[in-house]
């Protein structure tokens, strides 16, 4: 049984449908990417999974539990952590406070100290800047904090929404290195990305999402060719 499975998911905003009949799966321990041009619905997809946006049709199961239509805080309680587009940190709260909020859940609070130590070990920069306001961090540090905050909830699946957005190319490489290390710690990852080349080096499989539909799927090694990359940026 897959850790995460979507079948026939349709969702949208008001009169506008953003996702049509989307199906995908993520196995335990895998890293999967969803790529596609702007406006394809990648962010919408993650918001549907994490419960921020309701599903109009289709099923969404996480570890066997049906999660479609559950509110966000319940989805998180099941073990899905969403690192949103643009980070969505709490700007005037300190790094430490942001991380603390990540551990809001009861079961996460119990192991708060231990998890915090792990996060600081993964991201030493955060430990250094723990009393600094989140809003004053650099782009790369903010992304690290956002990921660290998600880790604080002791999730089983991490959703990453465009982590490389707004980062300098050097930072992007470092970021993907870090995500690789998170992955090595055993977390299952679903990442939505514009930077197709880099993300394909990181993941096992990838889906191509275009105008709300899954157009292609395959193993990362197979997809890492010119054709796929072009399609991912420009569209079929």
């Amino acid at each position, binding site marked *: 049984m897959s850790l995460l499975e979507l079948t026939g998911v349709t969702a949208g905003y008001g009169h506008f449908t953003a996702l049509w009949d989307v199906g995908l799966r993520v196995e335990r321990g895998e890293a999967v990417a969803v790529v596609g041009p702007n406006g394809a619905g990648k962010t919408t997809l993650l918001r549907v999974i994490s419960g921020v946006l309701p599903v109009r049709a289709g099923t969404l199961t996480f570890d066997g539990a049906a999660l479609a239509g559950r*509110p966000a*805080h319940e989805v998180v309680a099941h073990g899905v952590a969403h690192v949103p587009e643009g980070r*969505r940190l*709490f700007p005037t709260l300190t790094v430490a406070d942001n991380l603390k909020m990540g551990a809001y859940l009861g079961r996460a609070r119990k192991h708060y100290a231990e998890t915090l130590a792990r996060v600081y070990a993964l991201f030493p920069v955060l430990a250094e800047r723990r009393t600094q306001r989140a809003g004053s961090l650099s782009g790369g540090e903010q992304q690290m904090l956002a990921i660290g905050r998600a880790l604080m909830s002791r999730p089983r699946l991490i959703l990453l929404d465009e982590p490389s957005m707004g980062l300098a190319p050097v930072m992007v490489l470092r970021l993907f290195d870090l995500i690789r290390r998170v992955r090595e710690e055993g977390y299952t990852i679903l990442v939505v990305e514009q930077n197709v080349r880099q993300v394909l080096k990181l993941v096992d499989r990838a889906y191509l999402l275009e105008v709300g539909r899954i157009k292609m799927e395959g193993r990362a090694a197979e997809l890492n060719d010119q054709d796929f990359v072009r399609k991912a940026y420009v569209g079929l």
Partner: protein
Amino acid sequence: MIDPIFLAEAAVNGILLGGVLALLALGLNLIFGVIDIVWIAYVDLVMLCMYLVYFLVQVYGWPVWAGGLAAVALGAALGIAVHLLIISPILGSAPINQLLATGGLLFFLQSFATFLWTTDHRSVRLSLPSYDLGGIFLPLTRVIPFAISILALVALYLFLTRTFVGTAIRAVSQDREAMGLMGANPHRIYLVTSAVGGLMAGLAGALLIFLYSVHPFFGGQLGPLTFMICVLGGLGNMVGAFVASFIMSEIISIAGVLWSTEMGYVIAFVVFIVMIFVRPGGILARRG
């Protein structure tokens, strides 16, 4: 020409008053910052708590501290009740409807108070000594509420910065959706926030009854002023509200001594209007 001693006294009184106003402003601001709804009827809740203290202390002879605690408890209870009965059902409504819901509550509370207790002014008589500080008259009935307000504000600060729930409240006011992604049930946080906001209203009531007499339309006196303080400080900005409380209370106090009480309010409000144009986001508006 006015004796400078009177001006100095007015300035001091302004500070003393500012402390209690800050309680009101911060309570209202807390709720707005988190839930994004202005409780138009907030000061009417204060009015109810003032009546409670009046009846317990003046009529039934309870000790002052007990009456005060009862008012605080009532405030918290009212906060929760208002949230559950009125705010919760309209969380998704258009903002104008949300405003009218609390506006309707204002009418309801003011009329109900009239029905229950008539429009007579009630006050609690406390004979406390006054101190003379270099010619300035410092009545303990003003100093003690100020001191208690400051203590309460410090407690609030600690609550918001040191406790889990308090930090969560601050987080929600910055980004509600992101907090949802942390696994926080926003409704529970709203409830806690409403209870804390109501608690502050209750405490403010317990202090105000020793400074003013209460009547059903008391909310009409301090209500608009409280809203203005909140906006002046920047809606949702706690530090701003704190500062703005003292600015407004000073203006009212000093202008009140130079002209009349009403003119004091008029000038304060005009200053408010002008300040909003100069700094639309509030005097301590955060950039970005």
